[in-house]
């Protein structure tokens, strides 16, 4: 393997890894405030991408993306208002089934609103033939956009959770819902915010990857499964873990295709995850308690 090739693999691993990490962070935000794994997380990416593609026909690209993010965030809020809030004394399994149901419904509605055609946003800069050379490896400028956006999301979230009142309140909810409630935090509102935030970053990521991976009504589920894998690998609820997990999975996949048939690519990350879980049942950076809590 030449140095350029290795570099190419690393870049591709980091790109995919950062997408997975964003999806996993989306899972974590909602998980931390509600204990729910939102299986419709992948659909937020799809909705973001699809909405932006449709809007881009009428308005400039940046505006279309912004509107798509806002619209998806509103849909996230609606998901909470219409469904999640109505769950009375939900068990984890009830919540899983509801979000799986949501994922199916959103996907099928998307199929009927749009169709099964594969679409994509235009490249943010340049086109599919432009490429940037980094140390001899050629990459599309869109890859840089993806990496940049992922980095901005991670930094923004770090800032948000550390320094804003809403962010801190959400962390309080994550640590102890009852205590947060007693301190006068509007926990219901925090759940809504977590759904909006999750949907918004999902939508943004969905737009960023659209030019590379393309967008289709059913592209959410595989992404959600990857994101879930990464979230568990890093330890549920742990966003640093999500980034680490994302990179691990991204790299493994990138390099696996040089050894194994492409068809088995999706099984690699999961096999590794299973092996890790068998040794460390709470994930790489997960706390032991988190894995035991919130049983079925």
């Amino acid at each position: 393997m030449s140095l350029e090739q290795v570099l190419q693999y690393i870049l591709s691993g980091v790109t995919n890894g950062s997408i997975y990490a964003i999806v996993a962070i989306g899972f974590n935000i909602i998980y931390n405030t509600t204990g729910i794994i939102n299986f419709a997380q992948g659909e937020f990416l799809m909705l973001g991408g699809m909405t932006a593609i449709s809007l881009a026909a009428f308005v400039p690209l940046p505006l279309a993306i912004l509107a798509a993010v806002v619209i998806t965030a509103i849909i996230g809020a609606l998901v909470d208002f219409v469904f999640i809030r109505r769950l009375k004394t939900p068990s984890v399994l009830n919540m899983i089934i509801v979000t799986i149901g949501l994922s199916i419904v959103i996907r099928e509605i998307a199929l009927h609103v749009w169709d099964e055609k594969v679409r994509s946003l235009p490249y943010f800069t340049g086109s599919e033939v432009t490429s940037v050379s980094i140390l001899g490896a050629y990459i599309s400028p869109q890859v840089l956009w993806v990496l940049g956006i992922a980095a901005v999301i991670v930094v923004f979230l770090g800032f948000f959770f550390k320094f804003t009142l809403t962010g801190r309140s959400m962390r309080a909810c994550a640590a102890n819902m009852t205590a947060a409630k007693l301190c006068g935090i509007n926990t219901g509102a925090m759940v809504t915010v977590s759904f909006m935030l999750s949907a918004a970053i999902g939508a943004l990521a969905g737009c960023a990857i659209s030019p590379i991976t393309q967008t289709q009504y059913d592209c959410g589920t595989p992404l959600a499964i990857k994101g879930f894998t990464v979230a568990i690998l890093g330890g549920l609820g742990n966003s640093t873990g999500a980034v680490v997990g994302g990179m691990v999975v991204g790299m493994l996949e990138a390099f696996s295709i040089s050894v194994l048939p492409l068809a088995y690519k999706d099984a690699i990350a999961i096999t590794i995850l299973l092996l890790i879980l068998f040794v460390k049942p709470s994930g790489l950076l997960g706390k032991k308690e988190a894995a035991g809590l919130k049983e079925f």
Partner: protein
Amino acid sequence: MRFMKHAPVAGLAAAIVIFQLATTLLGREFYLTQLTMAAYYCLVILGLTVLMGYAGQISMGHAAFFAMGGYTTAVLTKLDLSAAAGGLPRLVVDLGLSVTSVNAFGVEVRHLSPWVSLVVAVLLTTTVAFLIGIPILRLKGHYLAMATLGFGIIVYRIVLGTSLFGEADGISDIPAFTLAGGLAVSGDPELRVQNFYIAAVLLLAGLVLLLNLIDSRSGRALRAIHGSEEAANAMGVDTAGFKLMVFVLSAVFACVAGVFLTHFNGGVGPSEADVMKSVTYVAIVAVGGMANLWGALAMGIVLNYLSLRGYFGSYDELVFGGILIVIMLFFPEGLLSARNLKNLKGAAVRLVRGKGGEGADGRP
């Protein structure tokens, strides 16, 4: 009391016969085809109900066990032993483990008896379920969900990426499974009625076995594990051992269903191992009321049948997703939960009692 216990099963058997006679009389026997398929899927769902509802362990990868059954029998019974000159194939023929049947091109082929492939499939599934069950069942909550989901994805990817399993096309032209006395599991429209009964008998047998299990020492141990693992363990219940046992048992149910449905369909494809399939099984157990074999059976038959008949056309999945949400929001314990049934029973009892004083209490 014995009567009370067996009455519902007898009722179901009667309903099956009546339904068949009705379809035949009305010239609508084609309904039976999808119902046969639904019955096999229900076998998976029943096994999963015991694992999830009674033992409290989720599995989001049960389609993998179904696929193991289907693909094992597909691969093994497709091997052509006609020209077996020596070695293992010759031995198989000499031991009488092979049968002949006519393939799609009208040529007679000698191949492994499906009975043998059934046994192999069950042994394989048992071994795999046992080996992955030991580490997986140590996990809890979402981690268990992910691990079982992951197992399902791995099997799906293997099936999809391996030429032995026909990759995206799957395996077709699988010979019929001749049981005994002219009975054969096959998609031949001539055999539609008998296949409906074969599936129904298998489903009833599975149901009775599991009902027996639930209402027994082992079943109580399982329900106790779900209720309080700590207390069950303190009472001398080997909780880890029981969980593993039920995991394997439910895997075998899925595998057997896979073997039979594959011979009935005459083919098997990767969609049978798809994650969506596993999720569907879990969802049906949940909407059936989790710890409720009858609820799971009812929802399994209805939802699978409607979906297989394509009642909702391109809205099929949308309706399924909608049903999941609605039932979880308004009937979180399932549509046929003990509580809902009790309310129903209470209403019925009140109706009867309203007429003539004290009604008969069925309590033993």
